[in-house]
């Protein structure tokens, strides 16, 4: 489908595709196996200015929006969903500053992020606060011109690798979610430590660790927005970033589909390529249609965000929900088309299947997305 990209967006997509094809694809299996963080690829992305596509020109970026970020995430994910997450995770960690940061904070942090000099990470989830984020325990106690952070954030993407962390913590426990605030914490701050690297089913080239705060002193200037705004910052960040998760899912689905189509044309059974069998053709047709529909939805929501539409909660939940379910289904079907080969690690599709699964889980499980969507729908009818 022709999504009528601008000239700049076409350039961004083509460059991301080139990097995915030439730099990421040859090493994706190797990073999946070793579970290392793909720093050499991050360096390539940095030198190519891709980290800056969604950051305003005033802060050294290219002035694009979420749509541009989605294009990059999708193309990188098409080669490797894990390596792409180093990029997308930085986007997620940057959004609180971009959306709610002060001019000083933007000036201080965004140029380095745009250049890819420093990666970012977003710290919300805790052991007992997953879908129920309001149950978080991490606290930030104000003392003079500092906040003292205590608590442990769990399963933080880019943790240990990133240098800039946006952290949600309670400044006033008594107020529940209204007592949460958002902070910028730099790696190396005393009292900030990282847990061991998690071993994961998929997206194994991405780094996932605990971030542990023990009397970690953060300058008061690092408070994003005001005290008590933390939950709003988090929700707004997630609403804005969900098209990015959708894009990652679309990329994974497309990558799996690419392999399935290629394989079906070269695999010969009963004297002909399996692509000539209708059973396979119909699977491919469904997969292709689903991927395109997911992409169309993801792009539409990304464009809504960029156009400044005020509430995109329902639509961004829909995009994330639909695209991630498609990614899982298409990856499973791709494995099926490759048959026994699909199940073998020598072929890349089983990796797409493992990578796809996380998109149904993180940044709000698909069950939570459905809750959000339904709640909005019901609220909308009440207003009528």
């Amino acid at each position: 489908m022709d999504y009528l990209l601008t000239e700049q967006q076409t350039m961004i997509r083509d460059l991301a595709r080139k990097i995915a094809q030439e730099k990421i694809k040859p090493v994706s299996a190797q990073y999946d196996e070793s579970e290392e963080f793909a720093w050499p690829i991050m360096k390539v992305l940095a030198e190519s200015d891709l980290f800056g596509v969604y950051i305003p020109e005033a802060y050294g970026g290219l002035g694009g929006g979420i749509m541009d970020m989605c294009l990059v995430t999708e193309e990188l994910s098409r080669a490797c969903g894990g390596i792409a997450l180093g990029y997308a995770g930085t986007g997620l960690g940057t959004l609180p500053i971009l959306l709610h940061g002060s001019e000083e904070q933007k000036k201080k942090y965004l140029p380095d992020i745009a250049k890819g000099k420093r990666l970012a990470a977003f710290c919300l989830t805790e052991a007992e606060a997953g879908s129920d984020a309001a149950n978080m325990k991490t606290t930030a106690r104000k003392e003079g011109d500092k906040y003292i952070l205590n608590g442990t954030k769990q399963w933080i993407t880019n943790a240990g690798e990133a240098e800039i962390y946006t952290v949600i913590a309670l400044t006033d426990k008594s107020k529940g979610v209204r007592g949460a605030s958002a902070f910028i914490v730099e790696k190396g701050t005393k009292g900030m430590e990282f847990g061991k690297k998690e071993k994961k089913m998929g997206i194994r080239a991405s780094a996932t660790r605990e971030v542990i705060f023990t009397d970690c002193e953060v300058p008061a200037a690092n408070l994003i927005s005001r005290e008590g705004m933390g939950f709003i910052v988090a929700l707004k960040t997630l609403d804005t970033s969900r098209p990015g998760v959708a894009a990652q899912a679309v990329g994974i689905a497309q990558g799996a589909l690419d392999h399935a189509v290629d394989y079906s044309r070269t695999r010969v059974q009963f004297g002909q390529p399996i692509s000539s069998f209708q059973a396979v053709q119909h699977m491919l047709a469904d997969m292709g249609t689903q991927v395109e529909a997911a992409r169309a939805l993801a792009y539409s929501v990304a464009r809504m965000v960029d156009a400044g539409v005020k509430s995109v909660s329902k639509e961004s939940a829909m995009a994330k929900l639909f695209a991630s379910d498609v990614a899982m289904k298409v990856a499973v079907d791709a494995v099926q088309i490759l048959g026994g080969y699909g199940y073998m690690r020598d072929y890349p599709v089983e990796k797409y299947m493992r990578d796809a699964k996380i998109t149904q889980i993180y940044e709000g499980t698909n069950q939570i997305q459905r809750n959000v969507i339904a709640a909005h729908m019901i609220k909308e009818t009440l207003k009528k």
Partner: protein
Amino acid sequence: MNIIVCIKQVPNTTDVRIDPVTNTLIRDGVESVINPFDAYAIEEAVRLKERCGGKVTVVTMGPPQAENVLKEAIGLGCDEAVLVSDRKFAGSDTWATSYTLACAIEKLEGYDVILCGKQASDGDTAQVGPGISTHLDIPQVTYVKKISEINDKAAKVERMTEEGYDVVEVPLPCLFTVVKEINTPRMPSLKGMMRAKSAKIAKWTAADLEADPAALGLDGSPTRVVKIFTPEARKGGEMISGTCDEVAKELVELLKGEVV
């Protein structure tokens, strides 16, 4: 430091396919790209600029569409670009090509280092680089795999040989042809690509070069093609089938004369 890179646009060989009937190349839809070896020359030029300061001028001789590879080179970090293009250059062999490029380089405001890829992927001659240095009467080092030291007077480089490498000292200005081992070319940057989009590319014709017209194009080329033919395709041989062990046994039997 004034650094000049000479590049060529070539058909992208990675998507070249062969027509099984006529046994000729299918060129439809084959895009033109920077000669892969020249990408290393561009990267080295940009690294020299980052190391010593100065500017990089990229030069190509070719049809008007060759402007695209020059823009790509700007996207990769070159500062200025010159397209040398004229019907009068058609039919140039390596003699006339190196003469034309040498004339264009002389027209530029001075140079300290000229970089070329070791050869072009379509012609594979490796003659144009040395040809340019000879026309300009400057020293050259071919097959350079490392520029270990360089200042505004001289350079120390490593030239790849069949057995290893030579360490060579050379005064500037000079010409280097570079091999793949010299660096890993960077990806283009978006900012570079945007600069390239609006960059002005100088276009020079034969008249601009003040060249000897008799030495240009086909007229200035000593060589010409007299015959072309498709080599007889090697006939496909015997297919061996069976289980792995069976085919291995049979093959070993068939190859006894070659191996044992």
